[in-house]
């Protein structure tokens, strides 16, 4: 097991291996996420029953919830990749961390936008300072800080390091932020504003949601891989195997 992990680590650290292997994964990832999207969305949009309270507006859930979940896990992945880079100086990890930031921020934005749009028919307002919404907004700010810091540094390497440190500081802060915002919210929140919290969801509602969640993670992997491959091409441009690709 340990040997296997070590081998995996060395492989992951090798840009060429990553480039080659992901080249083979791309069609699968693309196909699976396309199929998942089509199935999940048709099921969710056309076949799932309407919510008895919110009517059809609840169908936003099929993008809202996956995006929200993903935005949070992507931040964690970014921070972990950053830590791997700081500790083991693995360049691949730095590139992956760099690449996750804008993708994660995009999903964060999707969650915010769809949530806001959903709020209008449900609460009659686009935005309330609810705990989850607020902490999602702060997550977007955290993402933005990481992206901006990385771009601002003169040398790319110190940009990676700085972004990794910031991402880690942010990671430690996320639970604190969430907790404080929730505490603050329960203090102010009039009980009328609550997200739909039903004990159980109709399977016809739930299954497409699960499909969409899985699909979103696959799609995220696809986006990260596509971008990471560009990073590899750029950073390894002077290596012979990249030159071969370029000359083709």
């Amino acid at each position, binding site marked *: 097991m340990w040997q296997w992990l070590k081998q995996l680590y060395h492989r992951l650290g090798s840009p060429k291996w990553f480039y080659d292997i992901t080249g083979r994964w791309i069609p699968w990832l693309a196909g699976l996420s396309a199929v998942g999207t089509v199935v999940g969305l048709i099921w969710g949009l056309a076949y799932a029953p309407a919510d008895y309270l919110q009517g059809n507006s609840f169908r936003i859930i099929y993008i809202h919830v996956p995006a929200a979940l993903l935005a949070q896990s992507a931040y964690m992945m970014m921070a972990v990749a950053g830590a791997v880079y700081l500790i083991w100086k693995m360049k691949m990890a730095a590139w992956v961390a760099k690449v996750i930031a804008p993708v994660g921020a*995009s999903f964060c934005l999707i969650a915010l936008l769809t949530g806001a749009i959903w709020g209008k028919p449900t609460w009659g307002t686009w935005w309330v300072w609810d705990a989850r919404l607020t902490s999602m907004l702060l997550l977007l700010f955290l993402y933005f800080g990481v992206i901006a810091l990385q771009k601002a540094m003169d040398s790319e390497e110190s940009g990676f390091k700085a972004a990794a440190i910031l991402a880690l500081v942010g990671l430690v802060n996320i639970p604190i932020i969430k907790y404080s915002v929730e505490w603050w919210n329960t203090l102010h929140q009039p009980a009328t504003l609550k997200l739909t919290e039903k004990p159980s969801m109709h399977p016809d509602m739930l299954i497409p949601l699960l499909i969409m969640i899985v699909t979103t993670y696959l799609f995220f992997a696809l986006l990260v891989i596509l971008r990471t491959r560009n990073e590899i091409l750029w950073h390894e441009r002077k290596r012979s195997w990249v030159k071969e690709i370029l000359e083709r």
Partner: protein
Amino acid sequence: MHFDSFTAFLAMGNHGLYVWLSYGLTALIVIWNLLLPGLQRRRLLKQQAQRLRREKKHAPTA
């Protein structure tokens, strides 16, 4: 099938605007994210091919 007709599907029981607006915005962001790596890759390949040609041209003199 939950809806009786396609128009009913589009209307989403008065919530069409909200549902399709959020799906539309999401689609925009997703498409942007999908296109960007491809564009980046194309630019990068072009740039590097140019660089290789430049280096080849200068190589004999060096």
